[in-house]
């Protein structure tokens, strides 16, 4: 009985190990996914090549010569041959990474920001605002992506800015749809009701309770769009609606080399290989990210 009446010692502060956060868990799972890591490594190399283009490209990508047109792969001094104007293919592919990445990647983060804002507002406010916003989104969603991109750039005319604007407009409705549906789900959860009942202003509820829960799924969806965006962006250039010659961009190079498929097919196909590699790496990485963020699995 003595034990029971023993003096009560104040509990020593227990040091609870800080539970690892959601993002470190994602990072941990991602690091164990060899495919996603390999894809990321390739992407890092491509980005590095694009940034360092002036230092690693052996020649000026716009400088051609009539006497060395369409040299095959493996020509002395021109490892990947030359294009239809005698410009070094390796240098053009290296420089091409810059515009191709800008055209393919930039529309997605812009559309991510605008689309998320539109979708979260629609999802959180509901009612007539939601109907108005989502019906407008439906209209743009009613166009196949390729058609909408071509229609807008076709009307606006060719050029980098116009292509970026068109692609951004294509992706905004797609992202807004996802943002709206996840926000609507979160909005109806009890803790959001509780926050509203306790008098929290709408902005606070969105910032504290909604954003943290919806940005993840929207982000994963947006990363999956980059691969689509790469293919579409190069497709616009391929149609002559993106950047203008003599700028080096993979889609445009593919277009101008089309006439060379009879003389030098291997060189003509090279820019497409780059688009393919980049697009598949973005796809693989996005898949890995989705799996890593899906806590259920």
């Amino acid at each position, binding site marked *: 009985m003595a034990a029971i009446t023993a003096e009560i010692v104040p509990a020593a502060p227990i040091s609870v190990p800080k539970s690892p956060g959601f993002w470190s868990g994602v990072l941990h799972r991602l690091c164990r996914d060899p495919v996603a890591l390999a894809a990321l490594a390739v992407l890092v190399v491509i980005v590095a090549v694009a940034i360092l283009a002036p230092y690693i490209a052996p020649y000026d990508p716009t400088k051609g010569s009539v006497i060395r047109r369409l040299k095959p792969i493996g020509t002395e001094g021109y490892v990947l041959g030359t294009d239809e104007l005698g410009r070094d293919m390796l240098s053009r592919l290296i420089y091409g990474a810059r515009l191709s990445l800008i055209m393919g990647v930039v529309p997605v983060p812009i559309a991510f920001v605008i689309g998320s804002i539109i979708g979260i507002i629609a999802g959180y406010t509901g009612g007539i605002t939601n109907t108005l916003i989502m019906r407008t989104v439906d209209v743009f969603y009613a166009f196949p992506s390729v058609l909408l991109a071509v229609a807008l750039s076709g009307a606006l*005319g060719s050029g980098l800015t116009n292509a970026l604007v068109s692609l951004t407009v294509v992706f905004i409705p797609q992202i807004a749809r996802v943002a709206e549906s996840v926000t609507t789900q979160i909005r109806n959860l009890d803790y959001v009701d509780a926050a509203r009942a306790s008098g929290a202003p709408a902005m606070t509820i969105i910032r504290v309770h909604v954003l943290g829960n919806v940005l993840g799924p929207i982000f994963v969806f947006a990363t999956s769009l980059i691969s689509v965006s790469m293919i579409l962006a190069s497709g616009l250039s391929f149609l002559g609606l993106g950047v203008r010659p003599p700028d080096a961009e993979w889609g445009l190079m593919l277009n101008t080399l089309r006439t060379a*498929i009879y003389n030098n*097919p291997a060189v003509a196909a090279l820019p497409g290989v780059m688009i*393919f590699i980049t697009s598949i790496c973005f796809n693989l990485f996005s898949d890995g990210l989705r799996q890593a963020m899906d806590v259920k699995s």
Partner: protein
Amino acid sequence: MLVYAFKRLLHVIPVAIGVSIVCFMLIHIAPGDPLAAILPTDASLELQAQMRSFYGLDQPLPVQYALWAWHALQGDLGTSIATGRPVLAEILSASVNSIILAVAATLIGFTFGSALGFLAGVFRGGWIDRIASGLAMLGVSVPHYWLGMVLVIAFSVSLGWLPSMGGGPGGSDGRSFSWDYIQYLILPAVTMSVIPMGIIARTIRSLVADILSQDFVQALAAKGLMTKHVMRHVIRNAAPTAISVMGLQLGYLLGGSILIETVFSWPGTGFLLNGAIFTRDLPILQGTILVLAMFFVIVNLVVDVLQSAIDPRIQRS
């Protein structure tokens, strides 16, 4: 069923109006005077004024839209600057070719895609799954216009088996079901089929895996049903979704055929659109986009209604 179809139709009308507004605005976001796009550059001042009032370009935008939509509803989409023919006639003759190509591509894509997806779903985690999923991943990642070029290089330039471009030996007129014409269809259709193949394979894989994990499949197996009979139930359950994905892909291919049709000079709507962009033939550009987008809206509607007819559970949700 009819009530559901009617409800869907009511939902589609505002979308269709919105789509037409976007198409109408295309000419107005284009740099320059819209009239300059409709008239030849050497048009006289009287003609310019006449056309301006005929098209209502001196009116406010909403009135212009109403006029344009009224003409469009009656099948008057204007006149092509390049050929002087009515836009609708140009589009109709091109759409036949586009439909042939898109249907052929969808059929090829659906056959291989569903077979791949089904195998991958049944043998989930095995080597078949890895190969099928890998192929599906390649299918959704490949820039199809480049794949088209590669196929031309392989089968036309190197092997000389198939023609590299065009719609037939004498153009697309007098199309017949003979090798002379079909050989022109093979490369573009195969190239185009890669996208729906990848998407259908991925959809069916997860669908089949999902159905196989349900209780009723276990119950069927437990009561001693042979695997092939169990599979029949799985296929029946997967069919509505598979068909709707196929329908949507057909719509995408019809609307987004511009790249493939350009690569192969296939005389369809995409090729028409590409030509219109280069000649700044805005009436053709606007008309083609309107028709293709409306077509996509209608395909979506039909797919929705068909799906609900096959699977009544959809109407309730």
